[in-house]
């Protein structure tokens, strides 16, 4: 993150190399920002610009530029996010195929691109051409047979290991913050937490480069979550170019919310879904102004990606489906079953993954991150290669599962027994009995499903960029397709049963297994992340099928209900709790009857509150107090006897002010008295020079009385974004409640471990 120290605009070329000077107003790492102060600083800045704009034309133009800077930032974010997503897609496409072979005419082409101009492709083998050769053909000139298979297998594993090892080494050496999904940390950052370097330039570069490597290595992870992190890094980078955003942490978070929307938009090709995802999942405060700007950023990003055109046919995402066959009310029953499956799988995944991540955090497993990545990659590659459904990339698998079987498909999944006398046009093929290829595909899919369920638990959370949208959708799509084929065959062979009789006549096209795959994918994704509206919107923007909203909603609602019955947290909230971030969730309800006195510090038996007095402490006393305690701030009272509250002073600002005063002001020594009053009194002539610190005092700290119910206190913290709140009784200061105390109290009330809250 760029510090505020080098934002001056003057100075020579090498200024950016100097260490930034921390001035009053920046925050320390791993601390929470003061939302109210940021908001009031922004209002002050805006008022100053507005009043100056009436002075001259140049000032007026400057005020216009300031107003438009928000839109310029959104435009730049959209352009960069779209470009990076296009680069990632093209590079993943190429590197995934590199594990299996190489294009001899031009090495930068993937398999499909290599055979694009070839005339050798046949109906059954659409990707065959002489320019593309598998590794066995290249090295030992054999393409069939046991030795060719073993050589291909071996080289597949070697390439996967090579990519994964490179990725984890790059992450370890250059940008350790680039690992993981990024969404839990971004949620925490957007709620007001500071993690310096998390959205930095090196993190951006390394995350982009290593994301391509890990997706190409065949590991069971996706790139959607990391793309949100990449987009937020772009947002942070562009907002640091404009002082309106770089100096104000609250405004910067508006830009980051919009950048997150752009990230999801390019990941799924779903601009509206991206905005809703940012609103529902990622953002903390989402004013209406941000809604419109997020939409703009998401649209620009989607448009940029489309103009780069990574998939060659102006589609944004790999699994765009085009069928519009209707669905029937009786099919809601299997859709709801898929929703239940999605909810159960989500619960299972969250519990197992959190248990495994906790083990990684606390035992010796966490000391060998590189070895862990290599072992998991080796296991994934060894088990994935024999099954054709896991050998190819997960996006291609989902695309094939979503597709309807027309007459033009020749894959094993579409190996139905055709009626030779059939004369129907292309997209109205009736239900047919399954051929042997379909049965083979069914058990291969079942094995792939079990494998993916198990391996994703161990993959998500390793020290490489990893997302989990695509693996969840793959699990759901496989389950859905199997259910769909089952229902289709049931309808074909038993069309005289009462449930099928009304809507499925023989010779009609009733059941579309591809739709079941889509519904299954939505159910599993909803079960894991607990998204609601944004999930449905993303799914129908992905597929273009507005008529499928009702099945998608039914499955999403069912999976959320089933999953919520077992635990209230989605995967991202669970990871936030695992890391102990100070995230006060807006979705949690606090319904206990405790009062502010039960939570405030100091409790009975603890040391009394460390306070500063307004005119009776010397500089030495203040410095001793700061050195002996590690509180983030100190209340200022009138005197130790009458503990009437004046204001609140932050630790960091005290330290900086005292250091500045000692260096710059004459006469300030350790015996000087510190005054927080407006006008220090007249002193006798040979007393040391007083130190006036009224300007760093916050004169309006938030206070509640001791009988305020905790419900109200939690609400205040949540809605205003407070860091601490003072407790008074009849005007006298009693104690302090910090955000950490609130979180610990909530954890205690929910019977969780209150010591797991780590940050303030």
């Amino acid at each position, binding site marked *: 993150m760029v510090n505020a120290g080098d934002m001056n605009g003057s100075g020579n070329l090498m200024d950016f190399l100097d260490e930034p000077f921390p001035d009053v107003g920046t925050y320390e790492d791993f601390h929470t920002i003061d939302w109210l102060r940021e908001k009031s600083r922004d209002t002050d800045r805006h008022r100053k610009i507005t009043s100056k704009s009436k002075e001259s034309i140049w000032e007026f133009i400057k005020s216009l530029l300031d107003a438009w800077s928000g839109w310029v930032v959104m435009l730049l974010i959209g352009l960069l996010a779209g470009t990076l997503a296009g680069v990632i897609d093209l590079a993943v496409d190429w590197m995934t195929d590199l594990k299996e072979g190489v294009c001899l005419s031009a090495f930068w082409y993937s398999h499909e691109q290599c055979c694009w101009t*070839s*005339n050798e492709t046949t*109906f059954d083998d659409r990707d065959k051409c002489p320019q593309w050769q598998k590794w066995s053909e290249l090295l030992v000139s054999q393409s069939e047979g046991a030795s060719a298979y073993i050589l291909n297998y071996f080289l597949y594993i070697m390439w996967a290991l090579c990519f994964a090892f490179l990725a984890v080494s790059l992450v370890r050496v250059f940008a*350790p913050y680039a690992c993981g999904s990024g969404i839990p940390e971004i949620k925490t950052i957007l709620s007001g937490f500071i993690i310096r370097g998390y959205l930095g*330039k090196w993190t951006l570069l390394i995350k982009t480069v290593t994301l391509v490597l890990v997706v190409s290595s065949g590991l069971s992870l996706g790139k959607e979550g990391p793309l949100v992190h990449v987009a937020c890094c772009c947002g942070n980078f562009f907002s640091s170019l404009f002082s309106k955003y*770089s100096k104000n942490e609250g405004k910067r978070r508006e830009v980051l919310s919009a950048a997150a929307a752009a990230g999801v938009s390019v990941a799924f090709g779903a601009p509206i879904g991206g905005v809703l995802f940012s609103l529902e999942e990622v953002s903390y405060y989402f004013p209406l102004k941000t809604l419109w700007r997020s939409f703009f950023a998401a649209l620009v990003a989607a448009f940029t990606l489309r*103009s780069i*055109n990574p998939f060659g046919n102006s589609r944004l995402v790999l699994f765009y489906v085009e069928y519009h066959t209707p669905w029937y009310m009786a099919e809601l029953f299997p859709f709801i079953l898929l929703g239940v499956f999605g909810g159960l799988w989500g619960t299972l995944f969250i519990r197992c993954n959190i248990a495994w991540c906790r083990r990684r955090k606390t035992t010796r497993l*966490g000391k060998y991150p590189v070895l862990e990545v290599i072992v998991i990659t080796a296991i994934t590659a060894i088990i994935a290669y024999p099954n054709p459904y896991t050998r190819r990339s997960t996006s291609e698998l989902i695309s094939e599962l979503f597709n309807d079987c027309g007459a033009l498909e020749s894959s094993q999944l579409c190996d139905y027994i055709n009626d030779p006398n059939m004369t129907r046009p292309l997209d109205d093929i009736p239900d047919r009995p399954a051929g042997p290829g379909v049965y083979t595909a069914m058990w291969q899919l079942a094995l792939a499903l079990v494998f993916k369920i198990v391996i994703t638990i161990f993959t998500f959370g390793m020290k490489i960029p990893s997302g989990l949208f695509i693996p969840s959708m793959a699990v759901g799509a496989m389950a859905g397709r199997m259910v769909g084929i089952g229902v289709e065959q049931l309808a074909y062979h038993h069309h005289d049963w009462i449930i099928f009789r009304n809507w499925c006549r023989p010779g009609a096209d009733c059941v579309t297994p591809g739709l079941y795959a889509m519904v299954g994918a939505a159910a599993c994704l909803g079960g894991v992340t607990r998204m609601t509206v944004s999930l449905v919107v993303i799914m129908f923007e992905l597929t273009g099928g507005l008529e499928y909203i009702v099945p998608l909603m039914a499955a999403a609602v069912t999976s959320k209900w089933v999953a919520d019955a077992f635990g209230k947290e989605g995967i991202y909230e669970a990871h936030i709790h695992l890391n102990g971030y100070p995230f006060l969730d807006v979705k949690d309800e606090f319904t206990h009857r405790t009062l502010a006195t039960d939570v405030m510090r100091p409790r009975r038996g603890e040391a009394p509150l460390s306070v500063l007095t307004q005119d009776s402490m010397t500089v030495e006393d203040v410095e001793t107090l700061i050195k002996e305690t590690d509180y983030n701030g100190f209340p200022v009272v009138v005197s130790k006897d009458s503990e009437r509250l004046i204001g609140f002073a932050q630790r960091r600002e005290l330290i900086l002010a005292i250091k500045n005063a000692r260096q710059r002001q004459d006469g300030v020594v350790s015996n000087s008295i510190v005054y927080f009053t407006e006008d220090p009194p007249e002193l006798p002539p040979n007393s040391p020079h007083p130190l006036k610190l009224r300007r760093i005092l916050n004169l309006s700290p938030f206070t509640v009385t001791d009988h305020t119910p905790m419900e109200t206190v939690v609400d205040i913290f949540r809605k205003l974004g407070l860091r601490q709140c003072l407790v008074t009784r009849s005007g006298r200061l009693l104690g302090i409640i910090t955000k950490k105390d609130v979180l610990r109290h909530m954890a205690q009330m929910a019977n969780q471990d209150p010591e797991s809250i780590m940050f303030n």
Partner: protein
Amino acid sequence: MAACCGGWVRLCSLLVLAAVVSLGAAAKNSEDVRCKCICPPYKDHSGNIFNKNVSQKDCDCLHVVEPMPVPGPDVEAYCLRCECKYEERSSVTIKVTIIIYLSILGLLLLYMVYLTLVEPILKRRLFGHSQLIQSDEDIGDHQPFANAHDVLARSRSRANVLNKVEYAQQRWKLQVQEQRKSVFDRHVVLS
């Protein structure tokens, strides 16, 4: 606006990349468009795929499927089953993107090898025994950038460009070391 030149340089290079990519998308190769017709099996003819380099208005069965495998009266029935799609790609974009990606990856790998293997050897030769005494103190620190602290202390006095660059680099190394400690060692963030 900030004079963060590193940021502007990066912005300019990214804009150049974007311009090149979009230029590449505009400058179409004649090889980059095609009409692809997929025809399923019909009677005793097997399924076939036909590619031809025609414009979008000519992209249909009659123009693309040559030679027609079925005799005259069956052509219409055969063509009804075929599906023709117009596709275009940009080979220049693909080439530029892959080559730029591979060069960035190569540069990062070289820098990583330099930082982890070459630099400690060079520093050891330059500073000799005093370095060895200091490195005995933090014996567990076998990670890259382990000597960032003392280099920082040494170079704080001089103030020319090269030393400024080295100073910035050492500061960056310290930051990365802190991040690595939080993530990998203490498991405080991102576990």
